[in-house]
């Protein structure tokens, strides 16, 4: 009797699809996975493989890779359903891990977001003051759409998560490593972050580091970057020192600063708090006024500190 093939699902919540593309970017490798596992659910690529998640037995799936955040009632419902059907639940990608870029919405209320989208923007139909409703009665019957939550949640806020794969999106080589571990049954103990390193992006960054002291911050457009030197030392905010490595130093190697998509370092609870320490520590002054002047060159601190992880921060959202 042949071994039972691994039963796998890939699913997205409030996601962009980049995590799925990262899986596709493993190229031929994906055929090996298809050979070793039954992909029971993968909306972006596999069609008709699978009949009905609800009809499955509990824990019938070996593993679900869930990408995307939880933004509405539907995302939460499916997350719970898949949790029940899966032995292992993986938060795949930064949205599932920390809320991701959609998590920036946690600085605003549901009402502010709806207002901008449907009531106050320059291309709306004049005179139409309609807002989407969870239930609408039309002539022929009733229509429903999911409830848009007041804020964004991480996957772990709604279900128990067994493993986390960071990255926005995870680097294809990491995806490969993780899938290999899944298929060969060599995942580390539950709770681990997989597909990433234990070091900081700075540790892998090839740029020259000397002494970090700056008398002025520059926004990336305000200065032509020296391609060899550490960007932070040039006064350009870079989150490399507070970010877990594993991405291949993608951004600094494109001559652009890291914004922290791989999330906090091991044993760090709040990436933004560490970012603040890192940035302040290079300010070259002991004079309160001068310090203020230098730090005025850092706008939108929330947007840098938690570019990818406001819902995963200690305070999770703005009041």
């Amino acid at each position, binding site marked *: 009797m042949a071994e039972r093939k691994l039963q796998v699902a890939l699913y997205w919540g409030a996601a962009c699809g980049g995590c799925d593309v990262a899986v596709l970017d493993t190229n031929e490798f994906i055929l090996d996975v298809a050979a070793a596992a039954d992909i029971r659910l993968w909306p972006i690529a596999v069609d008709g493989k699978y009949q009905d998640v609800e009809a499955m037995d509990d824990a019938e799936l070996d593993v679900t890779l869930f990408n995307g955040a939880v933004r509405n009632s539907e995302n939460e419902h499916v997350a719970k359903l898949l949790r029940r059907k899966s032995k292992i639940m993986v938060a795949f990608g930064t949205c599932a891990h920390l809320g991701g870029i959609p998590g920036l919405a946690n600085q605003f209320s549901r009402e502010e977001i709806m207002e901008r989208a449907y009531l106050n923007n320059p291309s709306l139909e004049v005179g139409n003051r309609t807002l989407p409703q969870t239930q609408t009665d039309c002539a022929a019957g009733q229509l429903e759409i999911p409830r848009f939550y007041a804020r964004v949640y991480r996957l772990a806020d709604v279900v128990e998560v067994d493993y986390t794969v960071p990255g926005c999106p995870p680097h294809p080589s990491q995806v490969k490593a993780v899938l290999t571990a899944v298929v060969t049954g060599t995942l580390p103990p539950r709770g681990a972050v997989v597909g990433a390193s234990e070091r900081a992006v700075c540790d892998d960054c090839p740029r020259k580091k000397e002494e970090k002291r700056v008398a002025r911050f520059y926004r990336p457009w305000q200065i032509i970057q020296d391609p060899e030197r550490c960007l932070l030392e040039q006064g350009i905010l870079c989150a490399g020192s507070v970010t877990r490595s594993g991405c291949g130093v993608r951004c600094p190697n494109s001559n652009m600063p890291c914004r922290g998509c791989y999330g906090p370092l091991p044993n760090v609870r709040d990436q933004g708090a560490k970012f603040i320490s890192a*940035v302040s520590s290079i300010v070259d002054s002991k004079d309160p006024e001068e310090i203020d002047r230098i730090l005025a060159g850092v706008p939108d601190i929330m947007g840098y500190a938690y570019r990818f992880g406001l819902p995963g921060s200690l305070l999770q959202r703005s009041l």
Partner: protein
Amino acid sequence: MDFEPKIVGFLCNWCSYTGADLAGTSRIKYEPNVRVIRVMCSARVDPTFVLKAFEQGADGVLICGCHPGDCHYTEGNYKTMRRFPLLKRLLGDYGIEPERVRLEWVSASEGHRFAEIVNDMAAKIRAMGPCLARPALTEDPAQR
């Protein structure tokens, strides 16, 4: 009406904690709202601690260190000084009012000053009401 603010006070061991102690031994009366945490130096106050305090339900956070130039570790309080503006702005972005977070330099002999700071802060926060930053306070999973 009977809201009493919970203020977490991070006090450096060498100056500010001694100052607060002096306030006590000199029987200077001050509001009992501060829960003091002694740290070796104000620089030890990782911004994470402050966020954590709010996450745990603090209504205010007070950080006290030696006056500039007097830090037992020479440079520690400059570090604190540089860190504080960004931390305060971040808390502002979280919707936490500026009155709820303070950085003050308090020497070992400034018992009175410490008492005044605490009284002032407690009064202001009492007037503002509780801080809702603690996620559990505003979240009902059934009401998402």
